[in-house]
């Protein structure tokens, strides 16, 4: 993790590159999320002030688009693709299996903050349906067993590290 | 429409409501006398009849459906009535009785609020009363309803209008006459 002043500097540089142009708000929010992991009220207020935009406008934009997260995600993130092709090929069963196995609801994280489960509407990997994204990597032709095993491996590996 | 000798059989029913709609009905005042010449009240909270009779022509129902007894009564009324009318906002929208619908587990919460939180003595939920439905519903979500008279309460004038039109064999036009609240 970068230090706070370093992160702020990154964000400042990026906004300067866009000349504090309010039309680059989406790009700037993307960058903010990339730097901080999610969009908290503090950074939203900072962006609003820097771009000279009303806070409610910035908040409205940040919550309109599903790509932006206003809450910190878990250490590991699994995202199920709910696109048509994946749906037809049974991604719902995978989602339910993950929910059951790790006691987590979609859109939320496990109590220990280790795993977040999200859904997205189509990642465009439809020919490999059903697809699931685990920590940024696409798993095509996924099955409940494959996903759960992979997640167990990730979470288990983590535990041994912390021990 | 009707033979002069044969009066139209009218029933009224009171479910989960405040009886205000019935009061409004009585507010027709002297018009009630004219009406009495044409109709015969065969079942009503203001008439002492225990069982809903067969072959009723018109039934006016006040109140929403909130418990299993009301549900049964309503279904029975529907089976035995030609024309069923929702009278007042509770019957038409659910209105105040339905406000509890906003909570999950609303039947239980409502009972606890009434019989435990707000009770001074004997804090307990009675077991010998009809069971509350999980959701309070307007009549047309449960049975087919033929006409609607919204209002809290509907004015005597609107009730008169609808009944007069129906008795004259016409379909009431509710434009400009549906005042909710």
């Amino acid at each position: 993790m970068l230090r706070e002043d370093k992160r702020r500097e990154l964000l400042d540089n990026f906004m300067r590159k866009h000349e504090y142009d309010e039309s680059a708000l989406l790009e700037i929010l993307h960058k903010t999320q990339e730097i901080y992991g999610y969009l908290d009220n503090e950074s939203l207020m900072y962006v609003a002030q820097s771009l000279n935009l009303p806070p409610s406008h910035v908040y409205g934009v940040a919550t309109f688009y599903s790509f932006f997260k206003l809450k910190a995600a878990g250490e590991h993130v699994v995202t199920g693709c709910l696109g048509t092709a994946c749906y037809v090929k049974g991604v719902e069963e995978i989602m339910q299996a993950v929910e059951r196995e790790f006691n987590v609801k979609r859109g939320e994280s496990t109590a220990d903050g280790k795993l977040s489960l999200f859904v997205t509407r189509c990642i465009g990997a439809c020919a490999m349906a059903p697809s699931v994204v685990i920590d940024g990597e696409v798993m095509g032709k996924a099955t409940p067993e494959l996903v759960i095993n992979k997640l167990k491996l990730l979470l288990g590996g983590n535990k041994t590290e912390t021990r | 429409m009707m033979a002069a000798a044969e009066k139209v059989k009218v029933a009224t029913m009171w479910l989960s409501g405040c009886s205000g709609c019935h009061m409004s009905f009585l507010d027709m005042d002297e018009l009630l006398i004219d009406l009495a010449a044409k109709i015969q009240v065969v079942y009503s909270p203001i008439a002492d009849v225990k069982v809903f009779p067969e072959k009723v022509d018109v039934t006016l129902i006040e109140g929403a459906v909130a418990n299993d007894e009301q549900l049964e009564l309503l279904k029975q009324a529907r089976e035995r009535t030609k024309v069923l009318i929702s009278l007042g906002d509770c019957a038409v929208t659910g209105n105040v009785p339905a406000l509890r619908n906003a909570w999950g587990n609303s039947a239980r919460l409502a009972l606890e609020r009434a019989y435990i939180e707000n009770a001074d003595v004997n804090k307990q939920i009675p077991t010998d009363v009809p069971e509350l439905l999980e959701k309070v519903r307007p009549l047309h979500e449960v049975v087919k309803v033929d006409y609607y008279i919204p209002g809290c309460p509907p004015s005597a004038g609107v009730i008169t209008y609808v009944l007069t039109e129906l008795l004259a064999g016409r379909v009431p036009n509710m434009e400009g006459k549906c005042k909710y609240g």
Partner: protein
Amino acid sequence: MEGTRLKLGDLQKIAEHEVDFERAFKHRINVCCSSGCVPFGAFDVLKAFQEAVKEFGVEKECKVARTGCVGTCAVGPAVVIEPGDYLYQNVTPDKVRQIVRDHIVLGLPVKDMLYQNEAFFKKQHRLVLRNAGKIDPTRIQDYIAAGGYAAIVKCLATMTPQGVIYEVLGSGLRGRGGAGFPTGQKWSLVARSHSSPKYIVANLDEGDPGVFANRTLAEADPHAILEGMLIAAYAVGAEKGYIYIRAEYPLAIETLQKAIAQARAMSLLGENVLETSFKFDVELRFGAGAFVAGEETAILASVEGRRAMPRPRPPYPANSGLWGKPTLIQNVETLANIPLIVLNGGAWFSKIGTGKCTGTKCFSLTGKVNNPGIIEVPMGITLHEVVFDVGGGVADNRKFKAVLVGGPSGGCLPETLLELPIDYDSLTRVGAIMGSGGIVVIDDKSCMVDTAKFFTDFCIDESCGKCTPCRAGLAKIKEIFEGITRGEGNLEDLATLEKASIYIRDASLCGLGQTAPNPVITTLRYFKDEYVRHIVDKVCPADRCFKNVKEVNKQ
């Protein structure tokens, strides 16, 4: 070569030089490195080939190239060896040595690794995807060698803006974003608009679930999009362009960013394009997960950094678009057609496809079909040909039930409509739409009520919330569906569903709401018996619904 400012005549030289350079190789090994193949290890395969040709000492006669998608996304990583267009499927690094040894060194293609579905390519006609899988998208020289940027040179050197528009009008090209508005007419409107500056927005916000043709194009041939934008800018008098792309497409973004940088370095973008007085530059704008942002007026709001809420038209973007200025909004697939139209003439283009719908259309063919992937077929081809010839029929030997054409707001069409030719008007007539080109094959294991509910759910999630019919109406439709699939429906619900759907279609503000009820309307029209069985018999013919109800009852 890169970084030198080019003049109009220089491109020809680069092309010739590249072609000469290519000729030195006997074989070309094209490894598909697009989003469909990368997760299955395409980059490892690429590396393995580079090592294997060295190992066998054939690196002088073999060019190993990273390319875009050939379309057979279900059998990736895919590798094409030229000459002969041998398509190897499911290539893994451990198979690479054998391929190089047998195919390149011994001249014996490895038969059992080859893609066997010849029919997949037979009925396709590749215009937009002309370079997909053939050139390295990260090298501008590859594109130039394939005849790229020759069209903008032709425009700048020999054509007036009006002349370009005339050719586009003559081509009969219609917008590929879904609505099918004639492209030439749109260009004329923007060109005639007097205020300035003017803008171009290239729409790459492919939000339809199940559709990835635009992404494939951007990953395989980014310069075709840029050239299309350049020509459009020249024709309408625009000087700034934005490509609005989904943030969920990192590889396409990277490819486009590289392409823009290369084009700028060679003075194909920027001030004085190819040392002429024409100036045009392109910037990327990222979407952030909003299907509605693909709508023409919503995309403008999003490019301006606002909530992607559509606004009523008029005013049309051609007169009042970005920041109130004339703006040409065009899908990237439409734009990729433009260089070919300029080079070969509108008359040539108008002969492809049908009279009213010229050219080709890219489709993402997915669902329960044997050969899923990206296809490009001439307009007017029948659904039957697409599903059974190109697609190779229904997967797992199941029975065909329906085909959904046009994405989540498309229509579910039954077997009886399979002979329907695919064009804008025929599809609209039967309640489907072209949309952005999704074709999902549905087999007899799927329930049509559940399918319609799924698409309604999608549209509810993606509704912007501005207008009442779409925001509140769709939610009510969903509630009715939930009742039916819980076993609490009654036959009157069907009338309510239909009434509400038609109201939403007619009364909604934008295309999302106007088309959102299509799946409901078409399934009610073509599969009403399935609804009736759910309601009357409490039976789901595909055994998908009532499951949760049963489980709850058991508990």
